[in-house]
């Protein structure tokens, strides 16, 4: 009954999340609108383009009912530009720009529910699920790419360049955590999670007594983190 898996997401689970990303398709058959659990699906009228979740796009593709339009960043030109950035600069390439923040306290959307992989996504940035989405599209719909082999090669190059950075980044880990990893991808988090959290947690346990002493000193000096949080809460309102 209870889940036997350790904390963190497994690669199939990350792929499952990625399958909720919206992609653009060109339907080859008519499909009436459907009331799905994840929101209404608009009717598909060939040859009008439509944006649908990846799992449905893969299903339609497998049955030859649609072609998939790869997102602009998944093209040889964009990928080589990003790869150049990744090899020259020490940080991950910046993630796509975020849509404006909804007002008030309403729900903020995040990947896979941001349109990062539709035909009108930005061409110069890798979205959160870049690796998973790229490999799934290359596997299911290689003939929908202009040059699938080149894309495949560049994706592999990107993956290697970024993994090397991830490994190098281990040097900055310490007991307090607080490592910024902007631009990291979903599968990369999944791969690095056990190692990174293991190192941070291990270092924290080693330095525990020193930290306890410091906490006590801070409290004597009238500093309390719970108060700190309350203050922030007040500011936000």
């Amino acid at each position, binding site marked *: *009954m*209870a*889940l*036997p*898996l350790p*904390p*963190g*997401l497994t690669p199939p*689970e990350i792929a*499952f*999340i990625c399958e*909720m990303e919206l992609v653009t398709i060109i339907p080859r058959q008519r*499909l009436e609108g*459907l009331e*799905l*659990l*994840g*929101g*209404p699906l608009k009717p598909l009228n060939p040859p009008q383009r439509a944006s649908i979740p990846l*799992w*449905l796009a893969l*299903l339609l593709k497998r049955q030859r009912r649609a072609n998939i339009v790869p997102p602009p960043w998944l093209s040889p030109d964009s990928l080589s530009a990003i790869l150049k950035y990744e090899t020259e600069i020490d940080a991950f390439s910046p*993630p796509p720009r*975020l849509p404006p*923040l*909804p*007002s*008030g*306290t*309403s*729900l*903020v*959307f*995040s990947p*896979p529910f941001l349109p990062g992989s539709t035909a009108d996504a930005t061409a110069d940035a890798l979205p959160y699920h870049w690796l998973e989405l790229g490999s799934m599209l290359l596997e299911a719909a290689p003939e929908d790419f202009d040059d699938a082999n080149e894309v495949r090669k560049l994706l592999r190059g990107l993956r290697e360049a970024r993994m090397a950075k991830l490994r190098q980044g281990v040097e900055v*880990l310490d*007991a*307090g*955590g*607080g490592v*910024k990893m*902007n*631009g*990291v991808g*979903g599968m990369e*988090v999944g791969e690095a999670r056990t190692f*990174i*959290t293991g190192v*941070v*947690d291990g270092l*924290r346990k080693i330095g525990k007594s020193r930290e*306890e002493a*410091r*906490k006590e000193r*801070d409290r004597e000096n009238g500093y309390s*983190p719970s108060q*700190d949080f309350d203050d*922030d*809460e007040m*500011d936000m309102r």
Partner: protein
Amino acid sequence: MDIDDLLAEVSVDSISQETRDLQELTRSWVAERVAPEILPWPSDLMERVLDRIRRQIELVEDQTGNMDPKTNFKLIVIQTELERFKFLVRSFLRARLKKIDAHPLHILARHAASATDLLPLLSPAEHQYLTSHQALLTSHYASSFLSQFPASLQRMDDTTGGISMVDKPDEDAAVFVRVLRDVGEVAVEGTDKRLEMKRGDVWVVRWSTMRGWVASGDLELI
């Protein structure tokens, strides 16, 4: 539906409630899979989702047997999606059950403390499971060996010597978070770390420092 829901719907009217619920459910599932401790039960969300799943299953049952190829394909799509939702809900519940099994007494105490909150820690079904499972275990321990011990050693939640017998999860464990709304400067207690957390950032930080903002929806676990 209260006024907040209505207002929220006006501001993002282009996105349906179903899609918003899917975003929330996915977020809760990931959070539950990643966080070291159990999170409050999202009762309204689960009620809506489970109700929709129930209706969708009825629809599938009504329409199977219809041999028209067009309806047939629509059913395939609906069923594929239904299975995906069922997986999400199941994996979410199982991740919670795992935590309940691992730290029953700790969670029971926290649930009791949260009973008057807006969001209690456990759902009624989870609470029932936890209490009856604990009752069975306690009576089993008592009949098989605890009753042979001196009365002072029979307790399962002893705290003498400053050490509590009740096991609890490592609340300082490191987690990956994504910042959804600007949080500002965050101090990690016991260290010199001051983090400037801006929208869109991804950080590796201690869960204990972050949980307030995860609860308020300013951060999400990834």
